């Protein structure tokens, strides 16, 4: 831990936290006792007290204590943990405030020990003479030591206070576990929903825009083929329109493929990947060994990985060939993409690989990259597919 200097803002914030903590704690402890006796006060008051303490930690220490849902009745463990904190905090607060006040006070007194030497009559009778130079030096040394100690002590007391508060006001271990479970579930839900949305958009485009464009391109083609006796400019216009319609159709098809290829839904990874491999501008050796189909989400992630990796290879690797293998082993799906390109791919360089890693992370998979300068590059991905 970095030792705070006595003149730093940190030192003063810690000190303020500890000093203000005592009166606040005493006040809240009193209120809490009243609240226990008068249950209606408990319901409204306890969350308020807790909020107050939480805001003190946030303002002075910049520490966020995760809020918990307070049922506001005495049957709940959460309530009792909070009551526990409010009753315990005056003790912690008192110890802290006294120690911190004494150190700062000692520091000030010690450092000002040279002043009494000029005062004619010392206000108190000591065994030793404060006007003696050696005594003054000892006092000032002690004062200096206390000055250095004070911020550390304030830090420590604040940390102790924070620890107690986190334990009693924050969520307990089992609650955290539950929360992680909920988060994992909701994350999976979000991913599945996004995936379903992609499939829906694909379907909508297929049933709507794509059909319309095919029809348009066909009609233009028909016009081009039959209206041969038109004046030159009109024929040229039709030809251009026809070419543009075909181009738009191709672009839309490529877009839909990137979004979520229909073939992935209907035929699975094997079929979808052979389409991707066929479109790569270099030879791709593809092996897919999947007996039972995996979930649509995992299929989508695996498809995305291979298609992104091949796109990356085409863009950057100057590879002559690539190899893709997808294998299912029990509850894991292994995806391997290998190329003989120039290597030097880095996780932190482009957005492409980072995007891959994020997609893999989102489903709790792992991604390993090996890409020495001069190649070859291998991306290995492991996805859960229980």
């Amino acid at each position, binding site marked *: 831990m970095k030792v705070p200097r006595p003149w730093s803002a940190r030192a003063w914030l810690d000190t303020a936290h500890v000093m203000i903590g005592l009166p606040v704690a005493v006040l809240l402890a009193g209120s809490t006792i009243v609240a226990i006796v008068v249950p209606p006060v408990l319901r409204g008051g306890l969350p308020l007290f807790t909020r107050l303490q939480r805001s003190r930690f946030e303002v002075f220490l910049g520490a966020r204590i995760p809020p918990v849902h307070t049922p506001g009745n005495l049957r709940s463990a959460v309530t009792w943990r909070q009551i526990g904190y409010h009753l315990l905090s005056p003790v912690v607060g008192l110890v802290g405030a006294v120690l911190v006040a004494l150190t700062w006070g000692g520091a000030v007194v010690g450092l000002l020990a040279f002043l009494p030497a000029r005062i004619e009559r010392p206000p108190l009778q000591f065994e030793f003479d404060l006007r003696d130079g050696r005594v003054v030096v000892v006092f000032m040394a002690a004062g200096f030591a206390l000055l250095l100690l004070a911020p550390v002590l304030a830090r420590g007391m604040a940390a102790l206070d924070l620890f107690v508060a986190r334990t009693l006001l924050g969520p307990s271990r089992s609650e955290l576990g539950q929360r992680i479970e909920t988060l994992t579930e909701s994350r999976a839900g979000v991913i599945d929903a996004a995936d379903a949305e992609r499939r829906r958009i694909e379907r909508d485009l297929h049933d709507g825009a794509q059909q319309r464009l095919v029809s348009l391109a066909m009609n233009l*083609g028909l016009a081009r083929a039959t209206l041969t006796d038109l004046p030159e400019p009109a024929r040229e216009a039709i030809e251009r329109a026809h070419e543009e319609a075909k181009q738009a159709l191709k672009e839309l098809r490529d877009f839909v493929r990137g979004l979520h290829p229909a073939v992935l839904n209907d035929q699975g990874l094997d079929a979808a990947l052979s389409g991707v491999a066929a*479109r790569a501008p270099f030879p791709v*050796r593809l092996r897919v060994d999947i007996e039972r189909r995996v979930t649509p989400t995992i299929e989508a992630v695996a498809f995305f990985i291979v298609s992104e990796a091949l796109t990356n290879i085409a863009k950057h690797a100057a590879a002559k060939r690539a190899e893709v293998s997808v294998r299912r082993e029990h509850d894991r799906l292994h995806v391997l993409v290998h190329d003989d390109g120039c290597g030097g791919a880095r996780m932190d360089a482009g957005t492409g690989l980072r995007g891959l890693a994020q997609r893999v992370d989102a489903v709790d998979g792992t991604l390993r990259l090996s890409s020495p300068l001069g190649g070859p590059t291998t991306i290995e991905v492991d996805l859960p597919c229980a």
Partner: protein
Amino acid sequence: MRVVLAEDSVLLREGLIRLLDASGMTVVAAVDEAEGLLRAAEEHRPELVITDVRMPPTHTDEGLRAALVLRRQQPGLPVLVLSQYVEERYAAQLLASAADGGVGYLLKDRVADVTEFIDALRRVASGGTALDPEVVAQLIVRGDSHPLERLTPREHEVLQLMAEGRSNAGIGQALVLSEGAVGKHIGNIFTKLDLSPAEGDHRRVLAVLQFLKIRSSP
């Protein structure tokens, strides 16, 4: 020529009817689902069937399955399958349904190139094949060690055009080769794929069929 058409998108169906009419073909029945296709083909005995792959009710591959049923019921009935995407398993199933041609499998977008599309239709109707270039490209990337790997890049190109259903003259035109050179390449392909001359005129289809079969048998 009498054609039965199955396509669930009204827009495309009407467009195709217009297109076929303009090219001198007659659409004797146009339906929007697979059951209707089977009934119409039974009733009208067409010279060509054109069907979409994805159709109601499940929107997966009913059109293709209907096509396979038709090929069984009326051997030699020329069938052209249109699809939003190409998948070699579909092509393999189609071709495996009869080695004597009369099948086509094209990406829907190809409809836009009217002249080429009509050519493909006529080719299929007269017992030839019309495979989408994308299907062939997919077949070629399949990396398991099969005889295809022995082909040179040029032979690959020739096979690709062959699989699309082109004649030697057509292949020569596309690759800027003499017909004689094309014939030599095709001869090499047959040798490398172990197709003996005894198998006769269908070797062109068999060449495509062979690696389709290699792929579809796991």
